[in-house]
């Protein structure tokens, strides 16, 4: 496929969260390994917005950090525009890696923590350009920063201010301006609107859509808010305990959720249209990721689980327009729910 921008193959990342050596010896305990991401295959196409949803601890932020290189994968490979940027066989050519990475930028959740409070906004926005283009003159940088600030709906004069002089929504605009400063083609957005009020969230989501259209950007949009992902994404991946359990075009996923976990999540979202209606109560909680269940990790909460689900890990297989990791769906045990039934 030529329109593929990024491909992750069998990517896994585990963290050693063992107690200190002395405690392990005295308390006769072994190492404790947390598998944050456990074998994820994912392709992102040019120009699309891929949404990634899931509850806390499902590994969605770890995926963002693996892609931009903040973490190295334990297993698997990540290929971006034909260059293997991480994992086995990653390119060792530092210059090539750097020029490839320049095409991707990240927007973080907390606009209060991600901007240096001691720097003026112009310096914050100019920093990536100074790293990637040391040859730029002071005047060129200034002109570019002014253009970027105007592009995200701020004034060029705002460059002389400090981050504390801006509201949360304006700070997130500064983060977006900084991310756009290297002319990237791919933005990894980790919960970019979760810290914002709804009216401000709407401003930022609208801005991100306009920028995508104007600059032909590709987004990986990570959020725990299903309504936000429904609004912005073209395709959606649903994660549970480090794996993708369902991947489908947005309309398909919300109209015909296939995986029992996806159905449960959609049922749980409080929505304005469902005023007064009572919902299916969701059973159980996310299990401890240090000690995940055997087989399909969702089986203890799943109403359709059987012996096979308890023993064998399901693979992500095509099912209609979607990809689903569920034995019940693959065997045709679980009846499909139509849009009409899901909406009531």
């Amino acid at each position: 496929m030529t329109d593929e921008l990024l491909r992750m193959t069998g990517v896994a990342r585990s963290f050693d969260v063992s107690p200190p050596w002395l405690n392990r010896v005295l308390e006769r305990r072994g190492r404790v390994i947390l598998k944050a991401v456990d074998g994820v295959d994912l392709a992102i196409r040019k120009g699309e917005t891929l949404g990634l949803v899931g509850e806390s601890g499902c590994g969605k932020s770890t995926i963002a950090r693996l892609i931009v290189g903040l973490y190295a994968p334990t297993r698997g490979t990540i290929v971006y525009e034909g260059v293997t940027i991480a994992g086995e066989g990653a390119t060792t050519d530092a210059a090539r890696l750097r020029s490839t990475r320049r095409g991707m930028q990240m927007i973080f959740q907390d606009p209060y923590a991600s901007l240096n409070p001691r720097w003026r906004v112009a310096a914050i926005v100019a920093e990536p350009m100074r790293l990637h283009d040391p040859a730029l003159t002071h005047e060129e940088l200034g002109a570019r920063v002014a253009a970027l600030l105007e592009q995200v709906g701020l004034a060029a004069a705002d460059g002389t201010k400090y981050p504390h002089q801006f509201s949360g929504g304006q700070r997130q605009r500064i983060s977006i301006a900084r991310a756009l400063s290297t002319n990237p083609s791919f933005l990894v957005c980790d919960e970019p609107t979760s810290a914002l009020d709804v009216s401000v969230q709407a401003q930022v989501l609208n801005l991100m859509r306009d920028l995508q259209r104007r600059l032909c950007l590709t987004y990986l949009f990570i959020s725990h808010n299903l309504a936000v992902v429904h609004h912005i994404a073209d395709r959606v991946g649903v994660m549970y305990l480090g794996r993708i359990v369902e991947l489908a075009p947005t309309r398909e996923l919300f109209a015909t959720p296939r995986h029992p976990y996806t159905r449960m999540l959609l049922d749980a979202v409080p929505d304005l249209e469902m005023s007064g209606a009572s919902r299916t109560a969701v059973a159980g909680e996310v299990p401890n990721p240090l000690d995940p269940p055997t087989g399909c990790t969702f089986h203890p909460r799943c109403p359709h689980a059987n012996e096979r689900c308890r023993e064998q890990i399901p693979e992500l297989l095509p099912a209609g327009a979607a990809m689903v990791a569920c034995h019940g769906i693959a065997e045709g045990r679980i009846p499909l729910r139509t849009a009409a039934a899901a909406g009531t």
Partner: protein
Amino acid sequence: MQTATGPLLAVERLRVEFPTRRGTLVAVHDLSFDIAPGEVLGVVGESGAGKSITGAAIIGLIDPPGRIAAGEIRLAGRRIDNLPYAEMRRVRGREIGAIFQDPLTSLNPLYTVGRQLTETIRTHLDMNEAAARDRAIGLLEEVGIPAAARRIDHYPHQFSGGMRQRVVIALALAAKPRLIVADEPTTALDVSIQSQIIELLKRLCREHGTAVMLVTHDMGVIAETADRVAVMYAGRIVEIGPVADVIHRPQHPYTVGLMGSIPSIVDEREHLTQIDGSMPRLTALPTGCAFHPRCPRAFAHCREARPELVAAGPTRAACWLLETPAHAQARAEALS
């Protein structure tokens, strides 16, 4: 005086101030609303709207130097805003329960859940240790904690986030209060846990006839839970009414914008309605209607004078667009 059939909670012209070195900040202005017995009143607004301060004023927990500068809060006809500290402590817990956003900070990490529950029960109800423990186990079972008889001797850190919030709800219900003030009770929780907690709150209030003041920024939670909703902006109520009317037929331009800016999992829109700008700071409130700098329909009068809440169909909203000549005349007479 309120009679027995009157509202359970009546708030009248409440004003909360915070003196600072640069002058007095008024966080809540002239706020009036009431809650009927067994009713769920949702209070929504964005950060800084004054919704949490209102909740804190009702349970008497405004941090000094903040203070209630004017107005009255009455619980079943009895004034509670001017009670001495010790007496307010008896009201809080016994008659008003409180649930806060973060379940970890509202539980004492050094005591077992059982000890915190029995202490609360024995403070407010006349019970011996064994009876209080039985009631505590009963409460934990009621809020859906499995193996309650064993879990009662566990510490808060041994519970998950959702289970901790259940314990907090059990604590709030411990002395059978008539009103619960819940400040963002589900905000720190994942969606699947959030829906469990909402269902639990709804069921318990139905069974016990407890009234709830539910403070949240999440309109979806309000839609599923509340009977009526008050929308706050810059320290005032801009619209209040039955929940379905406020959501589907909002009258105030701020409510209209707020509803349009919420993404939905049902409909598909290219663009969300956006309200430009952000909530004004309390140090620099605009003149007239506080919403006028962001309002798409503002006109000259909005900059000069502040509208009062007037009836607009089934809801009440504070907007000059809704002011009929009859209203304007009635107000002019009342002022003269």
